């Protein structure tokens, strides 16, 4: 009780002191122009210091939020970097084969997307390269960042392809560089996802693994990145399917590469 009384007395003393000092300062401000300027400057400095302190405290408590934002950005940049690294590996591998004089299994033809559909279960893509440019039906449509589809028919100057966002298109894919090979197709749910089918139940697939083209088919070149694995789920109590987040952004797609395998007819004939 006595302590509380002392506290209030101290508080009252401090309040009276401040009031008297402010009163004296106010009189001084009116009495002298020099002191007026000096007191104004001094009070501005005090206010600036106080506001700066308040701002620092506020910034300190918002650091967690800013950290979360930065961590999110960091993650996005990391993913972007990984994607470019993988692209670089692919480009280097292709250019190395070229420089060593190896004849690639595929002929690559750059093309531009003329039209494309993404709104149905049977989406198509039309490219500005056709028969005269060396495009043949059954050629793969790829980008350095993923698989786009397959050429279905060709005109003199244009070609019509089935997009990967078409449930009739299936790509032979491999999880990781040396991992499991399984067919990949679109399940029609999202334009940025596809699924890997027929994964045996006893094999577990880690989330975040990169999915590549396997190269075992005659259509798609090997080691073209397709996407990354997401969750897996059991189908019919027999096999797993794995969701794959696609690298290709179909909504923003403009330039593609047509990979045409000149030996495809021979290979298909042999497998019949």
């Amino acid at each position, binding site marked *: 009780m006595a302590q509380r009384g002392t506290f209030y007395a101290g508080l*009252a*003393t401090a309040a*009276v*002191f401040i009031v*008297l*000092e402010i*009163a*004296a*300062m*106010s*009189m*001084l*401000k*009116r*009495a*002298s122009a*020099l*002191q007026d*300027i*000096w007191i104004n*400057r001094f009070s501005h400095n005090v206010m600036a210091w106080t506001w700066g302190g308040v701002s620092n405290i506020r910034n300190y408590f918002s650091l967690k939020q800013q950290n979360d934002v930065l961590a999110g950005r960091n993650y996005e940049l990391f993913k972007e970097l990984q994607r470019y690294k993988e692209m670089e590996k692919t480009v280097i591998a292709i250019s190395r084969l070229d420089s060593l004089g190896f004849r690639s299994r595929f002929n690559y033809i750059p093309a531009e997307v003329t039209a494309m559909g993404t709104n149905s279960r049977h989406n198509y893509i039309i490219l500005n390269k056709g028969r005269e440019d060396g495009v043949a039906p059954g050629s793969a449509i790829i980008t350095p960042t993923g698989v786009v589809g397959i050429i279905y028919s060709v005109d003199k100057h244009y070609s019509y392809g089935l997009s990967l966002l078409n449930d009739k298109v299936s790509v032979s894919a491999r999880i990781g560089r040396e991992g499991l090979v399984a067919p990949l197709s679109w399940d029609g749910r999202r334009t940025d996802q596809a699924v890997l089918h027929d994964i045996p139940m006893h094999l577990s697939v880690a989330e975040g693994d990169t999915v590549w083209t396997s190269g075992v088919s005659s259509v798609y070149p090997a080691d073209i990145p397709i996407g990354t694995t997401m969750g897996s789920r059991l189908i019919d109590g027999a096999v797993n399917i794995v969701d794959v987040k696609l690298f290709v952004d179909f909504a923003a797609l403009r330039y593609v590469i047509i990979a045409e395998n000149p030996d495809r007819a021979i290979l298909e004939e042999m497998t019949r």
Partner: protein
Amino acid sequence: MKRGHFILVYIILMVAQIIVNNYFGLSRYLLISVLPALILLLPRNMSTILAMLVAFATGFAVDFFSTGMLGLTSVALVPVALGRRLLVSSVFGDEPADRDEQITIARFGLPKVVLALLLCCATFFLVFVWVDSAGTVPFWTAALRWLLSVLVSTPVGLLVSRILRPA
């Protein structure tokens, strides 16, 4: 009777200060003030708030009747009143307050009274010189002014204590 005598002498010394301010400007480096001593020698049982009000009124009166700037003396004198109790208990101990003893040289000895006066004057002139110079005077000039004023006003304050508290 004692209280009436104290108030009378207090007012006379305040008038003396006004006269000094108005007619005895010795140097721009030297200020003479009996006001810190007057505040120190206020009755021991006076509360800090009352002492601050007395200090403010004293400063106001001195400034009003002097050619100085209104508010300057009050600004410097109120902090002296604020720290008075702490200073007195630190220098003289807590006993005088309990027994309502006043500060006199005869009771506490010359060194303690000089020390208390020195601290009061130092506080007063620190604020006074700082506010008066308003950042326009070089630091060492202000420091010299403060030092000379403290060194001169402390003995003057000692004289005031003999007049105000003769016993």
